[in-house]
């Protein structure tokens, strides 16, 4: 049995039957995928199950002696209070998580906006019960099942009808695991009522030892009601031995719009998965992403977009840059239901291979059961253009710098689609390939 699913973990709210029932379903449904599991055949989980991860925030996590600390700072800061800090070049409602544990929420929110720790929303009897786990088939998403088994940390965000939030809500996830390998489970529920508009940013960074190994498992449940619009941005810059597995499950109702962009550049093993149900007419989704990596990393971008009603629309542009011995995986599924006529589903994946040992696995999948639809997918991979490299070098630009400039240029047309100027600028500055591990 996998060491990921531990017994006798003390979770808050274990006396609430519906919550504990949900966790039980998660425990029952979790089976670690193997090489034979279709959804995971390109992304090998390697030694994930053999790892001795300790759940973040438990007594076991805190019980280490400082003499075992490997962070090399003389004094261990793992459980000292870290002042929330961020280098983001824009203001927003910042929500800080440290090693997957929510820190204090300290800001004034406009009327009609609620942000609460998930468990507080549960105890307060808020609508969170209506949403938790409702759209996720745990049998199909083993890591969402695992996340459900550990359901406790995260936030509940509710934007009331017609409320337009001008500043972004920023979920900043710092991991500074240094003495032992921790695992952390985050569950965020985000609800936009009719005509609401908001922006969510997820930022995953490590602040400790760059070689630290940890496992972040995130599930976002996103509900976009009629004519509401959510912009969702994510930067995944975990430590290079970390594991990051994330699922965003999104339901979009009539005229609603989900626009997302994800940049993945960290971790040894990462999957950013997005499942979108365009439930009602004129629901729309944009799911763009870039990924960049070196070393031995595997970075996976998986999408599943269901067009369930007529006149729904989805667009995906994903571009990756893979060097070293790394591997990029893209799995993109578009499902068009029999009644979903006049829908439009577009998907394009392109990758740049920087070395002979780099690998790309791409699996587009179209399931079209309706006539009168516009659907397309494309995939391409190639190498850096030698003539371009020579041209730049012949002007004095060093080979490494020329490569870096060309890589950034390759990704910029995806990033330039970001509609908010300050977020675009930030992402442009972040989309650089991390140094190869030494």
């Amino acid at each position, binding site marked *: 049995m996998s060491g990921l699913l531990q017994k006798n973990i003390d979770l808050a709210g274990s006396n609430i039957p519906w919550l504990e029932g949900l966790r039980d379903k998660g425990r029952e449904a979790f089976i670690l995928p193997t090489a034979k599991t279709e959804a995971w055949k390109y992304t090998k989980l390697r030694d994930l199950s053999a790892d001795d991860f300790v759940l973040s925030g438990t007594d076991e996590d805190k019980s280490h002696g400082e003499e075992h600390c490997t962070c090399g700072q003389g004094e261990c800061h793992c459980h000292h209070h870290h002042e929330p800090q961020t280098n983001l070049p824009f203001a927003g409602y910042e929500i800080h998580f440290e090693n997957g544990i929510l820190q204090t929420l300290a800001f004034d929110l406009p009327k009609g906006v609620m942000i609460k720790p998930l468990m507080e929303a549960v105890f307060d009897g808020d609508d969170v019960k209506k949403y938790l786990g409702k759209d996720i088939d745990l049998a199909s998403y083993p890591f969402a099942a695992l996340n459900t088994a550990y359901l406790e940390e995260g936030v509940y965000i509710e934007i009331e009808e017609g409320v337009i939030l001008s500043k972004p809500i920023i979920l900043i996830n710092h991991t500074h695991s240094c003495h032992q390998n921790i695992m952390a489970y985050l569950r965020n529920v985000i609800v936009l009522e009719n005509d609401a508009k908001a922006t969510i940013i997820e930022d995953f960074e490590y602040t400790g030892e760059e070689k630290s190994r940890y496992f972040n498992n995130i599930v976002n449940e996103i509900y976009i009601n009629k004519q509401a619009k959510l912009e969702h941005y994510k930067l995944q810059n975990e430590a290079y031995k970390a594991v990051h597995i994330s699922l965003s499950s999104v339901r979009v109702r009539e005229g609603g719009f989900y626009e997302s962009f994800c940049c993945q550049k960290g971790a040894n093993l990462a999957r950013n998965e997005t499942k979108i149900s365009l439930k009602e007419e004129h629901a729309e989704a944009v799911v763009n992403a870039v990924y960049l990596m070196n070393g031995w990393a595997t970075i996976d971008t998986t999408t599943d977009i269901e067009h369930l009603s007529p006149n729904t629309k989805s667009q995906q542009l994903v571009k990756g840059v893979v060097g070293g011995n790394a591997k990029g995986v893209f799995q993109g599924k578009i499902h068009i239901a029999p009644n979903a006529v006049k829908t439009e589903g577009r998907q394009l994946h392109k990758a740049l291979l920087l070395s002979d040992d780099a690998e790309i696995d791409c699996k587009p999948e179209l399931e079209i059961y309706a006539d009168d639809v516009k659907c397309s997918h494309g995939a391409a991979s190639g190498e850096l*253009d*030698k*003539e*371009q490299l*020579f*041209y*730049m*070098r*012949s*002007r*004095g*630009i*060093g*080979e490494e*710098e*020329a490569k870096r*400039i*060309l890589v*950034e*240029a*390759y990704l*910029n*047309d995806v990033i330039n689609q970001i509609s908010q100027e300050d977020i675009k600028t930030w992402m442009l500055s972040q989309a650089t390939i991390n140094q190869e591990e030494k």
Partner: protein
Amino acid sequence: MSKTPLLEIEDLCARVADKEIVKDFSLTINEGEVHAIMGPNGAGKSTLSYVLCGKPGYEVTSGSVRFKGKDLLSMSVEERAREGLFLIMQYPVEIQGVPVTTFLKHAVNAVRKHQNLPELDTMEFIKTVREEGKKLGITPDMLKRPINVGFSGGEKKRLETLQLAILKPSLAILDEADSGLDIDALKVVAEGINAERNEHNALLVITHYQRLLNYIEPDYVHIYADGHIVKSGDKNLAIELEKNGYAAFVKEQ
């Protein structure tokens, strides 16, 4: 008056994909001089320029090249550029996603770093680029566009000339700089190049038409055939060539 040699090529042999194209080529270019190499299409003139710039795939099999007294052949492509070698390419490459100004700034700072000079102030740099661009008819809008993408033949050559004006190389090689240019564009480019000439730098003009040489007057003209120089003379040789064609000279061997 003794002249300072800038480029000294001795018995250079080079090949591309196992085909010997440059054979026992020798030429010395001193500071302040303009040399023209003329030859028929397919004579390997572009190969010579690529060999001098160190383009991958162009292999030197024997001979030596010294640039400002240093061994040019042991330098990487970028080191040659930083030392002051510049090639105006016949077909400048398009680079999607990299704006002209960004590209120029990277290039200038790479050269300046090599010379132990501090990086240029961005505002100052943009001002300089705009001023130099204006002389060549390059609008601020063109400077924001990706390098050469959607540029006409004339615009591409003007952009090459702008890079020359900004990078201020010691030796510029013009590889068929007049191809794809109408007469007005040719004048603008030639004027731009002439404006950068001084007693310490030099030009190597590679062309198969005499036309360009009406605007950039050479001190020496060399006829290039079968991988090396078959005849040298002054600018009158170019006029003679234009009249009689290459055949007479190529036959002489």
